[in-house]
């Protein structure tokens, strides 16, 4: 089973600490990008009155998602256990098709690359990519 090495956990924690001052911006921008570049993802937000990428609902939700990611960073040693509540939420309430975790991860990394170009080196990229994939796996743990 794929897992993060001790070194990669440090890389992820350090990088997310560096990003934390702009984490709201990253979250809002990543979600805005998701619905613009992958319009089919709007199907999950049909109940919102305002689906504009720079509107308040999208921004707020992007910030919420980023908060979840920071929770995952703090539980990096046991993602499945640590994200149990979020996992149940996604499995029984939200039922987001897991393919969307991959594309949101991609959007998050594009924004990280834009805002932290020098820091988002290939070595950091691979650790973050693995981390996001493991978070996605933990979130879809209870799906079936």
């Amino acid at each position, binding site marked *: 089973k794929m897992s993060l090495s001790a070194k990669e956990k440090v890389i992820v924690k350090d990088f997310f600490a560096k990003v934390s001052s702009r984490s709201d911006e990253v979250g809002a921008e990543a979600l*805005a*990008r998701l619905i*613009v*570049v992958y319009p089919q993802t709007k199907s999950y937000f049909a109940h919102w009155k305002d689906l504009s*990428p720079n509107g308040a609902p999208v921004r707020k939700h992007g910030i919420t998602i980023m908060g979840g990611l920071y929770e995952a960073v703090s539980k990096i040693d046991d993602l499945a256990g640590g994200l149990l509540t979020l996992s149940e939420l996604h499995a029984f309430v939200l039922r987001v098709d897991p393919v969307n975790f991959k594309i949101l991860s*991609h959007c998050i*990394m*594009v*924004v990280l*690359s*834009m*805002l932290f*170009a020098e820091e*988002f*080196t*290939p*070595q950091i*990229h*691979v650790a973050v*990519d693995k981390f996001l994939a493991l978070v996605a796996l933990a979130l879809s743990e209870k799906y079936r």
Partner: protein
Amino acid sequence: MVEWTDFERATIQSIFSKMDYDDVGPAVLSRCLVVYPWTQRYFGNFGNLYNAAAIQGNPMVAAHGKTVLHGLDRAVKNMDDIKATYEELSVLHSEKLHVDPDNFRLLADCLTIVVAARMGVDFTADVQGAFQKFLAVVVSSLGRQYH
């Protein structure tokens, strides 16, 4: 046939006309080899790929990165028939190079990340959309002749 809006055409032309191939080419291929290490399988004769530093300093990787990036030029110049433009290259990748076409998608994702880094906030959501649509057509065309 793929329909391109004026915005999409202009965006693609702009990105590639401003691109520093000597910088982006090596950056994209080396990132791909680091982030998706199984892609190293196609470069057995490239020498030292043992770690990220070695990959990023490897001159053969750098040279090949430029070659691959310039391979996109023809698509940029022939956006209305990328399928036909890449027919031969698709056959080459299938019959001679034996590259799993999923790798085209991985490389395209790395290119998106690198271009995002170079463009910063100019890489807006709409620009990203146009760029990824272009790359998706390229990737599809390159995989088309596999059988």
